[in-house]
């Protein structure tokens, strides 16, 4: 470990901690922060780091670790259920992009070979950028996130066949050059990873865990991931695909959480380093000499990818709203393009200048994604939410109860009412949710309940009760106020998400049910019972608690803006509760000693 290594580390860490928090603050996301940090310290910026290629290569381990973690979250069953979007949507995306690239290359007077190579490179999106963004914005479980992930997976799977096609394009290559040995080795290694993961790994993990040395377990986790990455890399597969597979194999093992915890910090740092390295590799010189070409091509690639992704997603059943986000997420070219273009260069398929230009275009397109998503969040998302792409449904019948928000909470309430023969008009503003519950036979309507016209259409004038169970607290309160002022005869029952929310409703004078309160009290009651308190006594303690807490909530609501008083009052409430439950306990004991036996 020489001094230059240490000073390089210093530079990376300093650049990251200075730039990233600022970008995060500005709402631009950490990915762009790392990229910009890279540009700043790179050969075209402050020239603090020179050997960019080596760093980029090393930091790819971050992407491999990321995919390992993603794999851990996906057991084989869930992976299998994704086969349609992976092979259908993902396969179609790659094929269509290559075809389009060939067409455009031809139109620009380039050879078909250039078109094919460029198409293969540009078809690939950046797994690192997209997954990091999905994780940062919590979009992984959303439909757009799921579809994006499926396509990324397809792209990773396509690496081998695409590299083989590339070999065929090399000047002087014939069909005989198709490397069957390499294909066989690749398949063998994949089978090996799965087999070893299933049979050998668990006992070894148990053995490592039994050493009770955390460092050893961490070291083994890293060895496992890096070993897999090296192995698959050796047969020409993408490291990310290999570690992803290793993750999937271990997804249902008992060491999943342990592995996640241990790998997570390494992943974060190395992924950051990867983005920094990408930033450093931006060839500002090329930018400066032909800015219009680089920027124009980059924007062209991004625009082309969006234009192709949108209809494909719609074709595969993604809703229009989700398809927009999906197309924007995958609109950049990714790290795999470096590999494709690099290989095309060394195999003399493309001239050096073209490779440099295409590489610069890829990097530039990667810079656009955080900015596009920033714009999406500020401009497109609010517009989508406001101007509903889908007009509110026509509501055909009126019922005595209107349930706004048909998620976990609204469904239970409605089922109870329905069981007693009380019909409810159900309204939700999530089209996917509507479609889902309709399949289960519920008659639910699409619309934004905080709008007066929809409230009217739902029959608020004749209904007796409005139950508010929508997720967005602001929309919920707006609806409460609207209903109060316009339909004074309509009773309102609100679902409060937490204590703060409950305070708000207490202030509005609207009865509110705290979402998790009832179940938490029930859990407390069960806990007492398990600890040996009689069922009836436990129920009474729970009921005391419930009554006391509800009363206290009203009192606390008055002080909620005065933190000092709030803390005082909360402490007193805690003491009161203890006194109360001691009294109840004493009541029981006295009953036993002085009264009944």
């Amino acid at each position: 470990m020489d001094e230059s290594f240490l000073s390089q580390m210093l530079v990376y860490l300093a650049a990251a901690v200075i730039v990233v928090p600022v970008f995060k603050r500005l709402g631009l996301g950490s990915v762009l922060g790392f990229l910009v940090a890279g540009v700043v310290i790179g050969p075209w910026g402050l020239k603090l780091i020179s050997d960019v290629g080596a760093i980029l290569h090393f930091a790819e381990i971050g992407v491999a670790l990321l995919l390992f973690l993603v794999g851990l979250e996906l057991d084989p069953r869930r992976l299998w259920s994704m086969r349609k979007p992976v092979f259908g949507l993902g396969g179609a995306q790659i094929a269509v992009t290559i075809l389009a690239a060939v067409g455009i290359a031809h139109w620009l007077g380039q050879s078909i070979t250039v078109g094919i190579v460029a198409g293969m490179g540009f078809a690939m999106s950046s797994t690192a950028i997209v997954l990091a963004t999905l994780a940062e914005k919590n979009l992984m479980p959303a439909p757009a996130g799921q579809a994006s992930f499926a396509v990324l997976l397809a792209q990773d799977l396509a690496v081998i066949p695409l590299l083989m096609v590339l070999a065929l394009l090399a000047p002087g290559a014939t069909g005989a050059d198709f490397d069957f040995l390499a294909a066989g080795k690749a398949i063998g290694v994949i089978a090996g990873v799965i087999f070893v993961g299933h049979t050998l790994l668990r006992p070894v993990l148990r053995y490592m865990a039994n050493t009770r040395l955390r460092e050893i377990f961490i070291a083994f986790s890293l060895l496992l991931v890096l070993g897999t990455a090296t192995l698959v890399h050796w047969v020409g597969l993408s490291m990310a695909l290999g570690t992803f597979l290793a993750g999937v194999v271990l997804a249902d093992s008992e060491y999943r959480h342990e592995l996640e915890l241990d790998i997570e910090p390494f992943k974060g740092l190395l992924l950051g380093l990867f983005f920094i390295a990408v930033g450093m590799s931006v060839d500002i010189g090329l930018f400066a000499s032909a800015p219009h070409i680089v920027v124009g091509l980059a924007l062209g690639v991004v625009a082309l990818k969006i234009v192709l992704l949108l209809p494909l997603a719609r074709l595969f059943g993604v809703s229009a709203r989700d398809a927009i986000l999906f197309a924007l997420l995958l609109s950049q070219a990714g790290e795999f393009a470096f590999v494709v273009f690099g290989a095309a260069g060394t195999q003399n398929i493309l001239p050096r200048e073209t490779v440099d230009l295409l590489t610069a275009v890829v990097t530039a397109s990667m810079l656009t994604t955080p900015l596009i998503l920033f714009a999406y969040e500020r401009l497109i998302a609010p517009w989508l939410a406001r101007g509903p792409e889908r007009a509110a449904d026509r509501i055909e019948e009126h019922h005595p109860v209107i349930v706004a928000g048909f998620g976990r909470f609204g469904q239970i309430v409605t089922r109870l009412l329905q069981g007693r023969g009380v019909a409810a008009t159900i309204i939700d503003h999530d089209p996917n949710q509507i479609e889902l519950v309709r399949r289960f036979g519920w008659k639910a309507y699409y619309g934004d309940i905080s709008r007066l016209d929809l409230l009217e259409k739902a029959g608020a004038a004749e209904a007796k009760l409005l139950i508010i169970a929508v997720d967005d607290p602001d929309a919920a309160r707006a609806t409460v106020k609207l209903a109060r002022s316009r339909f004074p005869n309509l009773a309102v029952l609100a679902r409060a998400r937490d204590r703060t929310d409950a305070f708000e409703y207490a202030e509005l004078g609207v009865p509110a049910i705290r979402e998790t309160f009832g179940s938490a009290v029930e859990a407390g009651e069960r806990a007492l019972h398990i600890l040996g308190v009689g069922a009836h006594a436990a129920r009474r303690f729970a009921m005391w608690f419930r009554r006391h807490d509800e009363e206290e909530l009203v009192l606390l609501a008055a002080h909620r803006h005065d933190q000092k008083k709030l803390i005082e009052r909360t402490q007193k409430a805690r003491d009161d509760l203890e006194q109360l439950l001691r009294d109840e306990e004493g009541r029981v004991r006295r009953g036993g000693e002085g009264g009944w036996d």
Partner: protein
Amino acid sequence: MTADLRILVLYAHPNPDVSRTNRALRGAIEDAPGVTVHDLYECYPDLFIDVRREQRMLLEHDVLVFQHPMQWYSAPSIVKEWEDSVLENGWAYGEGGDKLRGKYFLQAVSTGGHPESYVHGGKAHFTVPELLRPFEQMAHYCGMVVLPPFVTNDARDLDDHAIAAQAGRYRALLDAIHRGELPAPFHTIPGKD
């Protein structure tokens, strides 16, 4: 007499963990042949009784036992709630209400007072069987044969030895009933012998 009578003991104690006597009595019969102990407060901590389930259990047994401490000269409130909800018109009484007819009814109660309180002129003014008349009449009205109550006095002040002896007697009584050796029927009805 038919042998092997099945006995359903409805155990009602709101705070079973502070009880000594009733707990010991219950412990003595829990594994007795033909006996099902059904803890009402444990099953229905909120007094919300599953009527159909209770009726099914009654149909599966020949003898109904109420075991509870005397509270305010009567049973703990869940016993009353049980009667009010389970003994339905058309099931336990009234037209077609013959499901309990011919079954036996026994009450096993404990009192906190001395035996001398439960006499005319004593602190309680009435005897225990007199205080239990609403239950006796309930059983009669449903066509059940009423057996003499099994009373444990002084429940709070008995020493462990006395409690164990009483628990043994309770077990012996239920064993005998199970074998079909029933005590003579019993009543406090004025003018009836």
